[in-house]
């Protein structure tokens, strides 16, 4: 079979486009001080940041699942006025500069924020500059990915399976847990992984809302940024770790759930 000739101009532009992404990654790999890798990775601050990052991003994913799945279900299944507006509002952080998100969070949950002032005066606790604040900032930025993915899954599933379950005497809860959730499993998983990966890389909203305190709010991306000033080699190594995690997630998703077309 004769292969179709690909226009040379397209190839050239595509090559430049690909190089634009690959060169920086290559730079990271080549310039990383591999000799100091173990030392950098086992430094207490690194371990601390890594542990905090994992804890906060997994918590954000859990919160996203608990709150995001019901939202997605309502967007997919309930018709009500203002639904499109509400969906736009709850997915706004996908396009909002994260720093703006952080400032907005401060104005709502900060010590003098809309809800934060009341929380502070009534219960005496504050959210900004705490680990809980990190989870909030990450959830704020990452949950929209989960909402949209799960909503798409709910919309594309064949609802007649739910009807079949009802004719078999299944309560609404049983229909949801035994039929709906398993059938949208791939979307649920993809949404959760996207949400988790986004939370893991979160920087702007976190540093704005939660600050940068080692062991409390200093996640990996924050540590990388800080180390850039004091210990460049270590920051390169940590960057590489984040890069690898992202790559594994992306490749894994594509193969297992997103279906390489």
């Amino acid at each position, binding site marked *: 079979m004769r292969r179709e000739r690909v226009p040379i101009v397209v190839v050239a532009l595509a090559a430049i486009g690909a190089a634009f992404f690959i060169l920086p990654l290559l730079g990271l790999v080549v310039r990383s001080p591999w000799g100091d890798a173990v030392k950098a990775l086992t430094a207490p601050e690194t371990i601390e940041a890594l542990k905090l990052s994992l804890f906060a991003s997994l918590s954000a994913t859990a919160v996203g699942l608990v709150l995001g799945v019901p939202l997605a279900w309502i967007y997919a299944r309930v018709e009500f006025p203002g639904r499109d507006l509400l969906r736009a509002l709850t997915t706004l952080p996908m396009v909002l500069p994260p720093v703006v998100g952080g400032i907005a969070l401060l104005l709502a949950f900060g010590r003098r924020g809309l809800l934060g002032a009341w929380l502070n005066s009534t219960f005496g606790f504050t959210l900004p500059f705490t680990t809980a604040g990190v989870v909030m900032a990450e959830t704020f930025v990452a949950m929209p990915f989960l909402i949209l993915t799960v909503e798409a899954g709910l919309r594309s599933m*064949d609802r007649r399976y739910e*009807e079949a379950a009802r*004719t*078999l*005497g299944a309560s609404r809860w049983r229909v949801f847990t*035994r039929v709906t959730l*398993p*059938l949208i*499993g791939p979307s649920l998983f993809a949404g959760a992984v996207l949400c988790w990966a986004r939370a893991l890389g979160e920087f702007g909203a976190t540093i704005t809302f939660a600050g940068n305190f080692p062991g409390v709010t200093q996640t990996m991306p924050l540590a990388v940024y800080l180390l850039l000033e004091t210990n460049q080699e270590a920051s390169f190594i940590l960057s590489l770790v984040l890069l690898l995690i992202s790559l594994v997630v992306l490749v894994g998703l594509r193969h297992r759930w997103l279906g390489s077309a």
Partner: protein
Amino acid sequence: MEFTIGEGEVVALLGPNGAGKTSLLRAVAGLVPLRSGHVHLDGQILEDTASGQYVPTEQRPIGFVFQDYLLFPHLSVLDNVAFGLRSRGTSRRAAADKAVEWLDRVGLKAYARAKPAELSGGQRQRVALARALAPDPRLLLLDEPLAALDVTTRAEVRRDLKHHLTTFQGIRLVVTHDPLEAVALADRLVVMEKGHLVQTGTPAEVTERPRSQYVADLVGVNLLRGHAERGSVQMPGGPSVAAAGAESGEVFAVIHPRAVSIHRQRPEGSPRNVWWGRASSIELMGNRVRVRIDCQVPLVAEVTPSALKELDLVEGGDVWLSFKATDVGVYPA
């Protein structure tokens, strides 16, 4: 429309596509709300728009076999069959035991651990039936149970289905657009067109005395409607047909295509009905030829291929047709 199904009866709801059969079935199941009307089962009110009563689908004692079965793809065959029992509070163990029993009954015990995707169409149909029957419903609803199968397996599955339907003691309502399926499976037919009931009766009654053009076409007979008086049926604004029998008033007249003879010259003899017309279509069906003739009212005649050859008839040709008054079946409209 209103109809009642007796204890232990198999009723087929027959009608052309878009007649509202599936909607009716879904309404009986409670999957779509009634705009007005009522559904009673064994004296229990399932839904009544007049009094506002409504029993949700999951609380109705029904089993539903869907057209494409809708077996849960993520569950094993066993778990599919056990699903209804588990939903209604049977313990995991007891539900599994009963599901195995049902799978054995439909001859699929060996496939208990398989996923629905691994089964053939006919096997899936049997699993769907077992799943619907396992919780012991009072009413079994089947929506085009054979439509998803290819022609080669359909006859076999139909026989199986008939067998399983016979062993189930509750009320059975089958929706179909296939008259063969309806006649094979049901004790009684309910014929529905455009949301209205047009005829109900045993398969023999319905096929012998069709009461709509749709049923007449299914059975393959000529159906006329007119006013009978003194041995003839006068059609509104059309010809009259000589018919034996003493009926009078509004009647249907049915003429079997085999009873209609075709001639190239005006025939002479005993037949009381002799019309002139034009052959509008000629179709070979097995060892018969069906000739559609445009005359005062369009009629179909059925002849053998050799008779057609002798007549030297082609589409558009002029013909005379005749049929005896004794071959016209007349019954009140």
